[in-house]
């Protein structure tokens, strides 16, 4: 994979996506069928659980119109792994109020096999 930041932005856009069908299609495009996603408070496996996980985050943070997720465009990678940071930005003043880190282990087809998420603040 060459465009790591582009891939990270596609991933982040799923978390901002308002349309459930589009979100679902993007999950299928980005994640392997049996992908795992571990965050500090969540452990989900497969497209169905990912769709619920990401929809819940959308409802909590993005849908009220107060926040949006942004990649920090600092993705680096080697072999089948990549990492990057993202922020949750408050719409009213552009302040980044939460910062996280994801490490992806990619499957042979380039989709995410494992998504290890950390929230730094």
């Amino acid at each position: 994979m060459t465009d790591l930041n582009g891939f990270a932005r596609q991933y982040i856009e799923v978390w901002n996506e308002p349309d459930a069908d589009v979100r679902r299609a993007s999950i299928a495009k980005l994640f392997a069928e049996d992908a795992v996603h571990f965050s500090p408070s969540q452990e989900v496996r497969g497209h169905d659980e990912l769709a619920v996980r990401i929809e819940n985050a959308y409802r909590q943070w993005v849908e009220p119109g107060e926040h949006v997720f942004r990649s920090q465009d600092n993705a680096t990678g080697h072999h089948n792994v990549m990492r990057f940071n993202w922020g949750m930005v408050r719409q009213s003043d552009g302040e980044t109020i939460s910062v996280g880190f994801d490490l992806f282990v990619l499957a042979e087809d380039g989709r995410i096999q494992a998504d290890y998420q950390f929230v730094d603040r």
Partner: protein
Amino acid sequence: MGIVPRFNEIADRYIAMFNEPDDGVRRRRVEELFTEDAVYIMFNNYPFVGHDAIFKQVTVSHRIYVPLGFRFASSHNAVGHHNLVRFGWVLLSADTGDADMMGSDVLVLAPDDRVSADYQFHDRVSSVPYDRLRPVDELFGDVLNADELARYREAFANVGRWRGAVASD
């Protein structure tokens, strides 16, 4: 899946393995820390799979840097959840105390709390003049086979080609 205790302790053990001067003790540390089929993936190298391969790479790192007065140190910022541990580390110069190399790792732990996958990223590559080290046969001849020696010989001779790449393959 339970909470993994003592994230910084795991990071400390990982770092101590790189600083361990005794080959036999370092080998035991590898076996204590990693599962038999563990994978260790860093940039600019093929994935190291299993105790033998990981021991060789840790030994190469030790023998490059420690005799030059460097030591590895954890950044003591380890965090974790589920079976994951993430932490930063530095390679410190004994002369200046400055960090000559920096990076971070995400470790995936097996049910027995040993590492089954180690995903390593470099944020700063060492300034060590790899192309002016002692010959690789002298440094690693007792540990690496001929193919492995040739690989490091080539990598060290062409340090300018990969030093700028940092975390990119």
